[in-house]
């Protein structure tokens, strides 16, 4: 740190409590932010390159390995894209089962973030384990709630990380009624715990900050979105997902191994819980909407620090939706709709916990992938995170370095960034050993 009026840099070499490897660099001159970079140094893994030459049926399992936190998002977007190529629609109980396991992923991912990654910032702890020494009941509730989400992943998918039971066209085996019914008591407990979670997080001390976001999310005629809907934004976008590439374009910048997405005007957009809420509030269950109202979220929430409240509301929603699906469940006659190899291009976009996960594939007549494009929500949000940081730092320059750095890290965690996901490249430059 230097004298007021001089140059000052904030550097965080390794941002903790995010998934993946990122760093932060901010340079100020006097009272202005001169440079602000969320540096993603996660080594690229080249999924889009390695998918070429693989079979269309392999895309869900391979792309799941982009992210261990949200494998369902990748499996779902890849499956929908391949079904789009073939012109097949998966409906009925299979569609409901897909929503059900997506509920599980939202619950486990959101609860992980709320209690273990984000809450420690607000309460002044380094982590949830340390928090457990002072507030054991809070952390035990968190772990049990997270486990309830994972119980859906295990039951329907086989395991929490990289579940094995999903495929293009549906599932390998549909769960029985008894298997799903056995989950109900714990999910009912979890619904109460989720409402308590909303009550807890709404009382946190939120920094006074708002931004004029363009929110972007899927919107469906009847449902709060998981797998289906049109690509919509508060900036007036309303197109089918097949037109995603017209709405957002990616740029390659020096400081990050993630491509950054911007809209047609070159501006960043925000995806994730706050965007879904702003665009789909009317699609929440009455209880989830009431929880949002009681928490004072209003029609839209523009303070990113309060995203923790929106996540908690979405956990309430996901649990109610899971219970609704289980209670109405009739096992399908077949676990899967046949989807054969087809030449063509297909699009899939689904709502990962952090926002829209977009896949586009071109396959040949043998079903071999010739071209793949995948955009993770964090690579879209990255430009928006940097914009938040710029706007946040200038009015807070009076803070000492430690406090300013902590505020910046908290602002990054507002987005629950999944840095492992966001790193993706079509091809690579090699350094030979």
């Amino acid at each position, binding site marked *: 740190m230097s004298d007021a009026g001089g140059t000052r840099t904030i550097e965080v070499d*390794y941002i*903790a*409590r995010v*998934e*993946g*490897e990122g760093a932060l660099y901010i340079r100020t001159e006097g009272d202005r932010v001169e440079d602000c970079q969320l540096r993603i140094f996660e*080594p*690229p*893994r*080249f*999924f889009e*390159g*390695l998918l070429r030459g*693989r079979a269309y049926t*392999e895309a869900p*399992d*391979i792309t799941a*390995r*982009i*992210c*261990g*936190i949200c*494998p369902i998002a990748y499996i779902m977007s890849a499956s929908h894209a391949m079904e789009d190529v073939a012109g097949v629609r998966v409906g009925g109980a299979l569609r409901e089962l897909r929503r059900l396991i997506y509920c599980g992923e939202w619950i*486990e991912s959101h609860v*992980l973030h709320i209690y273990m990654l984000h809450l*420690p910032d607000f309460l002044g702890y*380094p*982590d*949830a*384990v*340390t928090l*457990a020494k002072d507030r*054991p009941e809070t952390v*035990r509730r968190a*772990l049990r709630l997270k*486990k309830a989400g*994972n119980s859906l992943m295990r039951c329907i998918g*086989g*395991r*929490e*990380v*990289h579940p*094995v*039971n999903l495929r293009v066209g549906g*599932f*390998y*085996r549909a769960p029985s009624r008894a298997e799903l019914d056995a989950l109900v008591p714990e999910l009912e407990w979890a619904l109460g715990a989720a409402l308590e979670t909303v009550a807890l997080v709404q009382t946190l001390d939120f920094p006074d900050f708002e931004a004029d976001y363009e929110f972007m999310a899927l919107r469906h005629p009847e449902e709060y979105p998981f797998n289906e809907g049109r690509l919509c934004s508060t900036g007036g976008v309303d197109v089918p997902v097949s037109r995603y590439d017209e709405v957002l374009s990616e740029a*390659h*910048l*020096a400081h990050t191994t993630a491509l950054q997405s911007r809209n047609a005007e070159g501006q960043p957009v925000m995806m994730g819980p706050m965007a879904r809420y702003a665009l789909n509030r009317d699609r929440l269950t009455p209880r989830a909407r009431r929880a949002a109202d009681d928490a004072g979220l209003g029609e839209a929430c523009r303070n990113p620090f309060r995203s923790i409240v929106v996540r908690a509301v979405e956990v309430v929603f996901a649990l109610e939706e899971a219970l609704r699906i289980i209670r109405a469940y009739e096992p399908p006659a077949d676990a899967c709709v046949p989807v054969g190899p087809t030449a063509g291009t297909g699009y899939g976009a689904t709502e990962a916990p952090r926002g829209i996960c977009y896949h586009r594939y071109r396959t040949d007549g043998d079903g071999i992938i010739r071209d793949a494009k995948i955009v993770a929500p964090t690579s879209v949000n990255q430009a928006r995170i940097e914009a938040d940081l710029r706007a946040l730092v200038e009015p807070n320059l009076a803070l000492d370095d430690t406090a300013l750095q902590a505020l910046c*890290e908290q602002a990054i965690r507002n987005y629950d960034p999944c840095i*492992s996901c966001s790193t993706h*490249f079509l*091809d*690579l*430059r*090699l*350094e*030979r*050993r």
Partner: protein
Amino acid sequence: MNEPSRPRLAVWKFASCDGCQLSLLDCEDELLAVADAVEIAYFPEASSRMAEGPYDLSLVEGSVTTAHDAERIREIRRQSRFLVTIGACATAGGIQALRNFVDVDGFIQAVYAHPDYIRTLATSTPISDHVRVDFELRGCPIDKGQLIEVISAFVNDRRPNVATHSVCEECKRAGHVCVLVAHGTPCLGPVTQAGCGALCPGYHRGCYGCFGPKEAPNAPALSARLAALGMSSPELVRVYRTFNANADAFREESARHE
């Protein structure tokens, strides 16, 4: 009050999806007990407290894909009494090791904006190619029960009790109908190490080898059976080339069908 000295645990990340280290946080019933038994000294995904080494046990996720990471793992080895790799990336190179099979000169025909911004090696390699590894835990992802067993074993100075036999033995014990014999479903169970609990056959799906090759597998015999079921040579190449493509037995068997 001075806390008694506990073994110091560190969790490290290389090229990976984070799923294996997430498995530790997915131990919802055991996490607080683990945190009592060991000091979680370095685990950036879960804590902003990052304590200096040395560490008694380092869990390493991910593969080595950059020159910087090849250096970093050496330093981690120096800081660690025991070093255990967790998962297919750290143990075999992971799905990103598919780059190892590509003609590098063809691959480098980059079509994107600024290839000069990227620094990466031509290969994705397991940790054991770079430093001595005390134990390798398999799986894509690892099984969290096996993870707890490994942590418990190392902090108590004993070898982990982790089977090296095939998925078939687990599958029989689970009472599943053999999908290969009964339904003609291609299955890598006979050549794949146990540990998952024979998950896929339990869902009427063939094993896809995410725990990597078992001890002394007979992959050529399985390939002959899979070919008889109708798998083409390109399909046989692909079936061995997924998350453990760079593991010796799978790499060699896939090459036989090219």
